[in-house]
C-alpha cells in the first residue's frame, strides 16, 4: 500500500496568558491509503490538535512550531491558504465530536452536504443531492430520500452523526479525521454509528484517523493504535498486538481501568424502611407525561444505579425526588415520611437530607467564588456554622475529598482540573451532612482514570458516612463497578429492577439485554460478532423505530 500521510517530528504549541505552551512534542505519524489509525489518550493528550494538524489546520491560539505534514506529496504547512482550501473537504474531510454543534443550525442538512461537492466543483447540485440520498441509505439512515431536507435540530443525535459522516464522504475524500464521533451518543446509538462508519470507510477504501478516549471503541475501528499522553507518544502497535501485549505501563493502566468493582453488600432486610422511596410517580413537562408510575426504593448505605438512554426519564426522576418538578401523581417518602412535592414547601431539614452532584462540575461551580466560599456556603446555610468553626469544617471536608485544604482553600474553580472540580462538587454535597446524594452522570465528562478515582472516593465516603446514592448513568461499566441495585428505565418507565448480580446475569428483559450487549468490549471482533448476532437489518430497523 502506498503512503498517504506523513507527519514528521510535529511540535504544536498553544497560547495561554501570553506564553506558548507545548501541546504536542515531536510526534511522528504515518498513514497508508485505506488504513485506519486509532489515536487514543485522555483529554488534554493532544489527540484533537494532532487530528486537525493532519489537515494542516490549527485552532485560534494554536500553532505548529516545527515539523512537516506531507499529504500525498503536498506539504500542508507550506501550502498557500488557497491550495489547502482546495484539499480540505475534497480530499481530506473531518467528522466532529458533536454533530449537533457542527451542523449549521440555519441551513438544511442537504444544503450543507452539497456545499462541498458544488464549491469544489466535484458534482453538480442535483448530482450531489442524489448521491447524498444514496449515502444516507448506505449509512442506514431512516427515510434517506427526505431526511436531508430537515434542519439539524429536527434530527436525533445519532442520525446527525451519520449525516455528518455522509457529508464527509460527499467528495469521496482520501482521508477522514473522525474526532470522537460517538462520545456524545448512547451505547445503543453508538453501535449503529460505529457499524455505519466502519462499513462506509471499508467500502470506499478511505483512510481514517479515528480519535477517541474509549479503548473498546478504537479496538473495533482501527488497524493500528497510537497512544498519546500529554503530547507525547507512549506507543504504537497493530490493534491486536496492542490489546494482547501492551508494552508501556501507561497503556496497561488504561486497560485496567474497568477492573474496579466493589464487593457486593449483604441483602437488605425486607422490613427495613428505605431512606428514599419513590412510589408510583408520574410526572409531566407541560402536557406530556415523561414518567409513568415509577417506583423504586433506596436503602441506607446502598447505591441504586438508574440506567437508560438519554430521554428515558432518569434525570426527571431525580428532579421529582429533589422537588424541582412536583410529580402529577405518586409520592416521594423519606425515612417513611411523605415529602412535600414542591421543594419550596420543604423545610431546611428535609432539603438538607437530599443533595445533588452534577454531571458538569464546570457549570455547577460558581466561577467567581473560591473553593472555600463554595463549600462554606452550605456549611453556613444548613449547619449554621460561622467564622473559625466554618473554616474548620470546610477544611475537614476538603480533607475527606483528598484535597489539601491549605493548597485549595483560596483557589478558584478555573484553577482546578476536571476531576478536582468534581471532588469539590462532592464536598459541597457533603457539607449539608445528607443521608442521600443524587449523582447525575458524575463521571461521564471525565477520563477513565479520573472517573475511577471519583468512583473510589464515593465508595469510601459511603462506607464511612453510611450514605445512600442514587447513581444516574448511561455507562454500564460504572454500574458494574459501583451499584448495589439497578433500575433500568426506558421511555419514562421502569422496565426492570433488582440487585446488580441478578441484572448482569441472564435472563434479562429484552431492553436490558440490548443495553448490556451494546457496551463495546475490548475484543476487536466484538462488533462483528454482535452485528452477526443481531443481523444488520435489525440495526436499520432500530433506527427506523426511533424516528417514528
Amino acid at each position, binding site marked *: 500500500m502506498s503512503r498517504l500521510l506523513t507527519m514528521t517530528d510535529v511540535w504544536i504549541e498553544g497560547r495561554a496568558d501570553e506564553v506558548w505552551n507545548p501541546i504536542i512534542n515531536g510526534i511522528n505519524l504515518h498513514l497508508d491509503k485505506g488504513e485506519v489509525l486509532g489515536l487514543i489518550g485522555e483529554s488534554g493528550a493532544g489527540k484533537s490538535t494532532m487530528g486537525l494538524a493532519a489537515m494542516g489546520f490549527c485552532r485560534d491560539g494554536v500553532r505548529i512550531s516545527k515539523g512537516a505534514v506531507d499529504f500525498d506529496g503536498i506539504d500542508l504547512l507550506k501550502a498557500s491558504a488557497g491550495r489547502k*482550501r482546495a484539499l480540505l*473537504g475534497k480530499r481530506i474531510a*473531518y467528522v466532529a465530536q458533536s454533530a449537533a*454543534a*457542527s451542523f*449549521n443550525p440555519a441551513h438544511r442538512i442537504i444544503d450543507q452536504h452539497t456545499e462541498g461537492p458544488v*464549491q469544489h466543483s466535484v458534482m453538480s447540485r442535483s448530482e450531489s443531492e442524489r448521491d447524498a440520498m444514496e449515502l444516507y441509505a448506505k449509512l442506514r439512515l431512516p427515510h434517506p430520500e427526505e431526511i436531508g431536507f430537515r*434542519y439539524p435540530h429536527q434530527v436525533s443525535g445519532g442520525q446527525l452523526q451519520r449525516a455528518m459522516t455522509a457529508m464527509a464522504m460527499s467528495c469521496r475524500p482520501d482521508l477522514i479525521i473522525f474526532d470522537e464521533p460517538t462520545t456524545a451518543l448512547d451505547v445503543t446509538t453508538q453501535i449503529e454509528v460505529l457499524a455505519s462508519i466502519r462499513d462506509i470507510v471499508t467500502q470506499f477504501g478511505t483512510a481514517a484517523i479515528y480519535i477517541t478516549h474509549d479503548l473498546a471503541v478504537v479496538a473495533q475501528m482501527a488497524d493500528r493504535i497510537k497512544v498519546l499522553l500529554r503530547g507525547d507518544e507512549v506507543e504504537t502497535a497493530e490493534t491486536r498486538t496492542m490489546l494482547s501485549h501492551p508494552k508501556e505501563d501507561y497503556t496497561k493502566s488504561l486497560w485496567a481501568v474497568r477492573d474496579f468493582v466493589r464487593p457486593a453488600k449483604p441483602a437488605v432486610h425486607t422490613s427495613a424502611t428505605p431512606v428514599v422511596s419513590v412510589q408510583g410517580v408520574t410526572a409531566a413537562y407541560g402536557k406530556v407525561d415523561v414518567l409513568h408510575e415509577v417506583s423504586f426504593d433506596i436503602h441506607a448505605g446502598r447505591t441504586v444505579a438508574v440506567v437508560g438512554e438519554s430521554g428515558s426519564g432518569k434525570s426527571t426522576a431525580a428532579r421529582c425526588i429533589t422537588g424541582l418538578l412536583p410529580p402529577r401523581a405518586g409520592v416521594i417518602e423519606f425515612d417513611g415520611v411523605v415529602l412535600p412535592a414542591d421543594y419550596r414547601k420543604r423545610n431546611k431539614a428535609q432539603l438538607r437530607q437530599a443533595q445533588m452532584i452534577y454531571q458538569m462540575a464546570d457549570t455547577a461551580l460558581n466561577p467567581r467564588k473560591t473553593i472555600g466560599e463554595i463549600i462554606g456556603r452550605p456549611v453556613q446555610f444548613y449547619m449554621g456554622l460561622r467564622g473559625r468553626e466554618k473554616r474548620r469544617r470546610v477544611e475537614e471536608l476538603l480533607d475527606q475529598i483528598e484535597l489539601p485544604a491549605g493548597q485549595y482553600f483560596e483557589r478558584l474553580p478555573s484553577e482546578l482540573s476536571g476531576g478536582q472540580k468534581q471532588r469539590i462538587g462532592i464536598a459541597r454535597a457533603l457539607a449539608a451532612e445528607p443521608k442521600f446524594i443524587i449523582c447525575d452522570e458524575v463521571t461521564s465528562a471525565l477520563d477513565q482514570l479520573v472517573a475511577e478515582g471519583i468512583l473510589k472516593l464515593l465508595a469510601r465516603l459511603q462506607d464511612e458516612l453510611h450514605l445512600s446514592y442514587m447513581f444516574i448513568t448511561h455507562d454500564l461499566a460504572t454500574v458494574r463497578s459501583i451499584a448495589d441495585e439497578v433500575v433500568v428505565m426506558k421511555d419514562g418507565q421502569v422496565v426492570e429492577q433488582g440487585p446488580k448480580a441478578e441484572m448482569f446475569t441472564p435472563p434479562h428483559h429484552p431492553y436490558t439485554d440490548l443495553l448490556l450487549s451494546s457496551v463495546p468490549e475490548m475484543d476487536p471482533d466484538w462488533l462483528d460478532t454482535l452485528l452477526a448476532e443481531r443481523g444488520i437489518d435489525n440495526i436499520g430497523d432500530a433506527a427506523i423505530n426511533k424516528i417514528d
Partner: protein
Amino acid sequence: MSPVLKIILQRLGLGLVTLFVVSILIFAAVNMLPGDFAQAILGQGATPEAVAAIRRDLGLDQPPVTRYFLWLAGALQGDLGNSFAQANFASFVGADSGGSAASVAKQIAPRFWNTMFLAGVTAVIAVPFAVILGILAALYRNSAFDKFANIFTLTSISSPEFFLAYVLILFLAVLNPWLPSLSNIYIGMGFGERLEKTLLPALTLTLVVTAHMMRMTRAAIINLLASPYIEMARLKGMSPMRVIVRHALPNALAPIINVVALNLAYLITGVVVVEVVFVYPGIGQLFVDSVKIRDIPVVQACCLIFAAAYILLNLTADIMSILSNPRLRHPK
C-alpha cells in the same frame, strides 16, 4: 395554530398594552409642563378672565382624567383633536369656522410623510452600508481596514450632528456644488427633485447611525467564529467570505436586526437638529415648536407617533428575529 403565529400575536398584544401605558405617560408628562397654551398665547399682560375663557373654550378647565379619556377616545377613532395654535379664534365668538384645517392630523400628516421619506432614504443608504462594512470588518478583523472602519464610524458618531452636517455642506454643497444645502421640500414636488434635496440630510444621518449597526454586525459575526459549525465550514475548504456570509451571518441576524430597528426608530424620532440645519420640514421641528407654545394636542400626537414608531419597529425586529431562527420556523 403555528407557534410562530402565536408568538407574533402575543408580541402584537404586548405592543398594544405598551402603547396604552405610554399614552398615559405622555399625557401626564405633557400636563406637567409649566404654563399652558392660554398663558403662552396671551402673554404676560393677560387678564385672568381672558385666560379662563380660552381655557374653558379649549376644555383645559376639565379635570385631567376626563381630558385623558376624551383624548384617548378621540385618538382611538383616529381623531387626534384640534391644534390650539391653528384654531380659528373666530369660533370663540360663536361663529363656526366650519373647516377642519386646524385638526392635528391635517397638520402633522405632511410633516410625518416628510420625516418618513427622510428616514426611508437614510435607511436605504445606511443599513446596507453598515452591514456590508461590518461584514468586511469581520472578514478582515484586526487589519488596517478594520481599524480604519472602526475609527471612521466612531468619529462620526462622536461628532455633534450639526457639525457633521456643516462638514458635509462644506464639501458637497459649497466647495463642490453637487447637492443643494437647503432641503426646503414642499407638497407636489417631483420624486427626483425631492430625493436630491433630501440627500444631504440623509447622508448626515447615515454617518450618525452607521457606527452602531456596523459594530454590532462585526461583533455578532466575530462572536460566532469560534462555533464548531464555523470550524466545520472552514474544514470543508470554504472561502473566508463564504464562511462569514453563508455560515455566520444567518446565525447573527437577530442582534443585527434589533440594532437596525433601534436606529430606524431614532431616524423617525430624533432628527430635530438635522432638520433645523437643513431647514427640512419634518415632524421633529413641528414637535419642538409645539412644545414652545404649549400646543398640547400636537405635542401629544407627536409623542404618540414617536412611541408607536418605537414599538412598531421593535415589534418588527422581534418578529424578524424569530423568523430568522429555523427552530421556530420548522418545529420538530
